């Protein structure tokens, strides 16, 4: 268990330090992590993202807390709580250090050609990173990946309908959590 805790600290510090592109980019790092260590399944992580999106707080922090809880809770609920605290603090501490350094040399950082050049490529790379995170959630939610060209039909239809609805300009203001509730109701009624 000590080894798991140390790994959690290391992995979440790495995520906080490297995940350019905000909370959604953190999700991709979490996917890497669970694929490497097999701590939780892709479905569980998708559930965690759902909870993280529909509860208060930054998505990256919410997901980190939840993963920490899930990984250590097999040792007991108390360990789960500790796990959430450990992953959350590990995620935010390198970031705080980076920002303090940046804040000290704010003008230098802002006008640095090196930083601007790097972010010229990092911004689109972060979009690709988030797209990869989304792709793996799409795959696991639609039952893809078991067989090469298999996809569950009913979830696929619901998915396409929801995407189309969300892209309607009139529905832009609707709270995302309402779509999650709608998904949950459909899941219960259709026995997904």
């Amino acid at each position, binding site marked *: 268990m000590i080894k798991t805790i140390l790994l959690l600290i290391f992995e979440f510090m790495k995520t906080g330090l490297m995940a350019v592109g905000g909370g959604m980019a953190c999700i991709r790092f979490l996917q*890497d992590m669970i694929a490497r260590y097999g701590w939780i399944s892709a479905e569980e992580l998708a559930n965690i*993202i*759902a909870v993280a999106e*529909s*509860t208060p707080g930054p998505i990256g922090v919410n997901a980190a807390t939840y993963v920490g*809880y899930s990984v250590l809770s097999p040792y007991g609920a108390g360990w789960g709580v500790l796990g959430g605290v450990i992953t959350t603090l590990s995620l*935010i501490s390198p970031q705080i250090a980076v*920002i303090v350094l940046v804040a000290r040399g704010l003008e230098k950082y802002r006008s640095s050609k090196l930083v601007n050049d790097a972010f010229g490529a990092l911004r*689109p790379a972060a979009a690709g990173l988030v797209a990869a995170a989304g792709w793996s959630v799409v795959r696991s939610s639609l039952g893809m990946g078991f067989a090469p060209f298999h996809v569950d039909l009913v979830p696929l239809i619901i998915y396409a309908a929801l995407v189309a609805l969300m892209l309607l300009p009139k529905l832009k203001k609707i709270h995302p959590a309402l779509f999650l509730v709608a998904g949950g109701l459909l899941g219960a009624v259709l026995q997904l």
Partner: protein
Amino acid sequence: MGELYLSFLKIGAVMFGGGYSMLPLLIRELVDNKHWCTEEEVLDYFSLAQCTPGVIAINSATFVGYKRGKVLGGIVASLGVVTVPLLVITIIAAVLQNLMAYPLVQHIFAGVRVAVAALMTVTIVRLVKKAAKDAVSWAIVIAAFLLLTVAGLDSVWLVVMAGAFGILFGRWKKA
């Protein structure tokens, strides 16, 4: 310091849907209520928070906290943001773990996951539209996606490679 902590505790407790929803809350609390920063400063911190790694909300909080109370201020503000989410998520995680044994809850979550996939798809469409401005940035978006999904590259290496590429490309463009 106590006031700083409470302000960010409040913001962390009412923000939904991640970093972007935080901006109006920051302006209301820090500019309108407390007069700690000007609106320009908040906008500036917020855009810088997106050009630094990690969760945007924590970066914004650290910037403001640092301005108010140096290193300790940065830490206090960030801890304020995570306090309520940490409690809420821990409780939900503990409750859900017990509920997951019921088939009904499993069906509900199967549906919720589909909605999450849809939500992420829409977010990605908007994000890519914003980030891909020209042929080079389109190529980077696509290359990053393929490297991660098809080639199975680790995200850390992608970030390192993209940063290095940006710097080299900047040099080359100038030369």
